[in-house]
């Protein structure tokens, strides 16, 4: 069974204090790993898709990396507006057809000024 575990559950940072969020996954053949950001009362907002180990993607202060067992979301010099819940999801590779996204429970990030 495909599984995603995110850590920590919650993270409190001071503005400018860089850190990383972890997403560990178990999947029988990875098709893609997805990072989303979710603000309170809103739906998840797509950030990145990573397809293979060694791949990295960046967007502003965020950089996502992928290994065969986990992904990291690195946040460099965060600002209060980066406060949100960050969700990780995996999609398995199968021979045919649709494969659902399996989500972790997220990391709640709070960045204080």
């Amino acid at each position: 069974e495909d599984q995603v575990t995110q850590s920590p559950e919650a993270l409190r940072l001071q503005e400018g204090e860089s850190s990383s969020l972890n997403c560990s996954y178990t999947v029988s053949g990875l098709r893609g790993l997805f990072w989303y950001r979710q603000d309170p009362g809103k739906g998840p907002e797509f950030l990145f898709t990573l397809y293979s180990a060694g791949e990295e993607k960046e967007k502003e202060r965020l950089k996502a990396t992928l290994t065969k067992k986990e992904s990291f979301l690195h946040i460099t010099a965060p600002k209060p507006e980066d406060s949100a819940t960050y969700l990780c999801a995996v999609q398995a590779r199968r021979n045919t057809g649709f494969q659902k996204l399996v989500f972790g429970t997220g990391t709640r990030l709070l960045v204080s000024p």
Partner: protein
Amino acid sequence: GAGVSQSPSNKVTEKGKDVELRCDPISGHTALYWYRQSLGQGLEFLIYFQGNSAPDKSGLPSDRFSAERTGGSVSTLTIQRTQQEDSAVYLCASSLEATSYNEQFFGPGTRLTVL
């Protein structure tokens, strides 16, 4: 429209009543997905549509849950005889199609509270 829209944004109902939740996907997106997000839980996949067809309904929690999509656009998720454990945020997403490397774009969700 510019994004996925859902209505109502909030729904409070009494146990045993039926509810209908609506999703309007991004124009041109042929795939549509329903998820449930309970407090402290990850997003739980419920069902997807490719066009008007729902090939896999195994994610629906019970036979009280059903969904349909007409005209390849708007979808309705119906919960019959609601129970307190159905209280959650119901999220809809859409993508260009279901079986390719296409990102899913989410709506704001409907918060359902069953009293």
